[in-house]
């Protein structure tokens, strides 16, 4: 194998690992949430070349947030506009009301800073802490994705855990693992944009 061939192979391996593991020094991963309606907004995960600013990878998903379009309404309004930091990502989060694959967002005061402070918000789905489904009743179970009304949230961004598998939350998580890969608490600087 020539030196040139080795170099090409090495470059290919570096590139592969760069995309398989955490975002490299030359790439950045961020989410963009475009608010159209409480149950029919759009969430993208983006891989950006930090040198050129170009988006070199993007996947998009239907997403929901809130039950009203007033971003100042605690427990009701969709996520306020602006930039957020990511506070962490967990595959098996086991909160009392939010479980499974989640990304936690930083706090945000609504209406450009004049109103309610919104806090403890996540990107998540309706699933159990082990990424499964728990659907004991014929009604709306909190850890079971029954249908489109599950896009409603109290303020968080929600993506579907619906068949066919991998579900949207599964594909979002796989993309995160491929492009960024961090887990646990960390600070993802300016990693979520809401418009």
């Amino acid at each position, binding site marked *: 194998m020539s030196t040139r061939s080795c170099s090409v192979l090495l470059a290919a391996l570096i590139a592969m690992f760069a995309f398989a593991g955490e975002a490299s020094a030359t790439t950045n991963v961020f989410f963009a949430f475009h608010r159209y309606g409480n149950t029919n907004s759009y969430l993208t995960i983006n891989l950006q070349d930090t040198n050129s600013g170009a988006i070199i990878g993007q996947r998009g998903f239907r997403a929901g947030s809130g039950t009203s*379009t007033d971003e100042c309404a605690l427990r009701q309004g969709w996520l306020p506009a602006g930039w957020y930091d990511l506070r962490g990502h967990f595959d098996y989060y086991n909160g009392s009301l939010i479980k499974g694959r989640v990304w936690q967002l*930083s706090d945000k005061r609504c209406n450009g800073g004049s109103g309610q402070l919104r806090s*403890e918000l996540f990107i998540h789905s309706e699933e159990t802490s082990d990424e499964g489904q728990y659907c004991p009743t014929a*009604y709306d179970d909190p850890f079971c994705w029954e249908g489109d009304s599950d896009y409603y949230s109290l303020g968080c961004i929600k993506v579907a855990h619906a068949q066919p598998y991998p579900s949207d939350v599964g594909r979002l998580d796989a993309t995160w693992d491929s492009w960024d890969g961090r887990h646990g608490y960390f600070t993802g600087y300016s990693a979520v944009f809401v418009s």
Partner: protein
Amino acid sequence: MKRIALLGSALLVSAAVLSIHLVTAGGTGARSGRVAVAQTRAAPVGATVRGRVLSGLGKSPAKLELAASAPLAGSLVPVAVPSPDGVYVAYNTWRWRRDVDWYQSLSSQGIQTGDALGTPVLHVRSLGRGKDVALEPGTFSAAWRKDGALAYVRGEQPDYRANTPFLRQVVVRSAPDTAPAVWSSSPAEYHVLGWAGQALIVAQQFEGESISLLVFDGPGSARPLAQNASLVAISPDGSSALVDESPADTDAPALRLVSVTDATELARAPFSTIVDPATSTPVAWVSGPGDWLDDRVVASTSTGLVVLRVAGGRLSIEQVLHVDSATRPNGRLWEPRFADDGRTIVTWTDLPGAQAAQIVCDRFALTCTQGAAVPSANAPRPVYDESGGN
């Protein structure tokens, strides 16, 4: 004979006018519909606080020590609360430790998780003497009991820290100048909502902004009132509370009338039965805080306002008002309150450009007036207490 006929006709007309007046005054003449909104330059109506200006409680407006503000509670609780004897007003204040551009991320401004950003402090102002007393740092969200006891929350630490839950205790003073007693057994994200007689109704906030309601009967004595629900209003006699469910928590959300004594459901009104008169479709949500006057409750909806009647343990929908502006993003109507006549509803709304305005509606005439736009920091928020009962 002709005179007698004329007299009879006059009496009939008078009787008809009188009966229309009585029907309207009784509210049974209220009809659902789309309300027309006109602009006005008139001064705000009722007891209001706008930044540092407190008006409608005394002979002339008073200037508060600090602007009334409660970013941790928002409009879940009143920003200023009058005592039942009219001697005091308790109001929420907030001091930022540093300027924050909330449109940008915190990290881009050098703010790390755990950095102290601001401090809430509850103030009690004597309306007669103008004396203003700041309570402990880290306090906000107040309600007065009929006998003058003051309930509020007090942070475990005085400062709100970035990305960190502001944990607090529920405390009660038997009078504003007495020592506070802790009623909660452990700190949590509590909001004091109001007294129902001797019982204190408190909201507990969880991750994802879920809220459940608790009743404190005394120190260390809390019991559930309603899970995944928020308070709309407390009955004037303090025996029951109207709470709202979220479409995010259930596929059949409803307003629920619950007994404060034992949390049993007395009546319910599914949102699917509250039909907007302009669109002929059910409202998506109904939410508090609202107002309960005699046997009527007013609350905000996804398209305007709803007036409900609570009588004989039954809940009925009296009137649904469609307000076009309420359907816009950031256009909901906040904290609707009845004026004493039960015919006028006073509320306020955010406007584009970080502004706000008071809206005053005649619910019988189906007309509203919108006051002058002011910066959101000076939004004309009503001064009230949700508490009921003796």
